[in-house]
């Protein structure tokens, strides 16, 4: 299986650049530990990335880097891996029945799930919607508890 190398972002400017340069495609930013490639690619993200490459581009964000912390904070990233979706520099939300609509928390159970989610985002974005509903059934959505300021 050829692994599709995903760009790893470590700096704010890089994140900025990729958000601004991805035009008319969904941008999938996965936040995780660069040191732990398994964490980042639990769900074969690299393989899935190729499948969605026509309408999406995937990038990894290393939350361990210092410069990235602004974004980590900005996006309220509490759990890793977290995936944030952008389209044309606009942030796309997804309602998957969880507490946090702004991002996808956790890994995807199957490669196809990831593709489905990205496709749903793409369709919604093309129609002009900023929030889409999750196409996956409940059992395949990772559950988590969102804590407010570690309370």
């Amino acid at each position: 299986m050829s692994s599709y190398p995903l760009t790893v972002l470590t700096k704010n400017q890089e994140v900025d650049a990729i958000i601004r340069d991805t035009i008319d495609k969904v941008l999938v930013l996965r936040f995780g530990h660069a040191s732990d490639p398994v964490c980042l690619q639990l769900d074969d993200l690299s393989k899935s990335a190729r499948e969605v490459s026509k309408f999406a581009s995937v990038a990894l964000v290393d939350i361990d880097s210092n410069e990235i912390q602004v974004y980590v904070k900005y996006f309220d990233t509490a759990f890793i891996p977290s995936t944030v979706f952008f389209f044309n520099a606009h942030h796309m939300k997804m309602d998957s029945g969880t507490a946090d609509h702004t991002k996808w928390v956790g890994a995807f159970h199957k490669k196809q799930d990831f593709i489905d989610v990205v496709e749903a985002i793409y369709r919604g974005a093309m129609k002009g919607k900023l929030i889409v509903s999750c196409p996956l059934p409940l059992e395949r959505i990772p559950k988590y508890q969102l804590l407010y300021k570690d309370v």
Partner: protein
Amino acid sequence: MEEKLKAQKPNPNPNPKTNTAKKKKKKSEYEFCKVCNLNHDQGQRHKYFPSHKSSLSNFLSRFQTKLSDVRFFLKNPSPLRPELASKNRFWCVFCDSDIDEIGSSFACYNAINHLASADHLKNLKHFLWKYGGGMDRVDAFRIWEADVAKWEKKCISLKSDAVSSSQGAIGPEIGPLNDIHNENNYGNIDNFENSSIQSVKSSLSNGVMPLQYYTNEYQVSHSGLYEATNVGMFAHDFGSFLPAETCSDTNLWNLKDIRVNRNSQHSFPYNSYSSADGSFSNGRMFQVHEDEGIVKGESSSHGLQNLARISTLAPEEARGNVHTGAPPPWLEATEASQIDAPLKPAAGSLVPLNKSGKSKKLNPKRVGAAWAEKRKIELEMEKRGEIVKNDCDANWLPNFGRVWQSGSRKESRKEFEMEKQKLLKLGSQSEIPIEIQPYVSKRMRTEAGE
């Protein structure tokens, strides 16, 4: 026939409850309405519905236009060439039948006879009753017997003329093209010849003005051109002949007709009318068949009735005109600079220039469309090496709807930036370490104290 089946009354309501509750709602079988082209179960009520009424008026007006073509030929019979007869079919909507012209010697022969027939009248009346067209319109869709008789007389006279003047290769099979497409042309010629204004007016609708008078120039200029003709046309008044091309043969008959009417006393079979006339009227045909020597350019200038003749023959001849398919003068200049091929619409030529693979336009309502367009322009400018006004600073952040904030995304971004600034301010100060002390209860304190 289908119509007869439809004529059956719909079944009475089988359900007694609804009968008492609503008298109007009779359950009827589905019928097909030819006018609206749909199946309905409204029974006899359907023809009063406004949608039906509007479709009916469309339907009938469409048929009327076809009928007007037929009526034209009723007034001006012209012979029909057998090869072209197969193209001339006429569908009578009232009788639901196709009326072709195979084997008919004159244009719309069968159609005219059909429209005058008793069967057709019967079907027409039934149709109007069924679809609510208004019985006063019966006459609009049929042809009177008297008219048919007149028409037949005309046809006979035409035939006899044709037979009597059997000079040259014109045989009975050669006749004017009874192209429905070129009916207008015939109309022009014939109307032209009937020196009645109304005929001219009717021909006006065809978009081509017939010549109202001879243009001697044509004859003079072209007398030498049409020398040898297989047809053996004789230009008694004018020294021009028409070439014996197939298309021109159609003119022959037209001219003949013209002649018959025009020089009413004469019975010249093929007075070759000025070629201008022929060419004018059949400008299209001439062009199509590319008959040489047929006047092309001039005719357009001489077409208008009662207007000063534009006597600019020579220059026009050289350039050609619409009828010859020459490009308009304003395009000639550009043509020279561009491709010589026929000009395509601008849009078509731009299609291949678009981005590869972008066959459909992206939804303009998609998320961030405006931003995307702007960004694309910026990128293109960058590619071209121009300086891009980069108004993003290091502190740029996308509009992100944060988790714990409510309100719009811009607001949440602003909030975040404010928080960031606060953090920066506080960062310089040392934080007072907050000591966490275990809870000591009163009892413990008292115990400890004791």
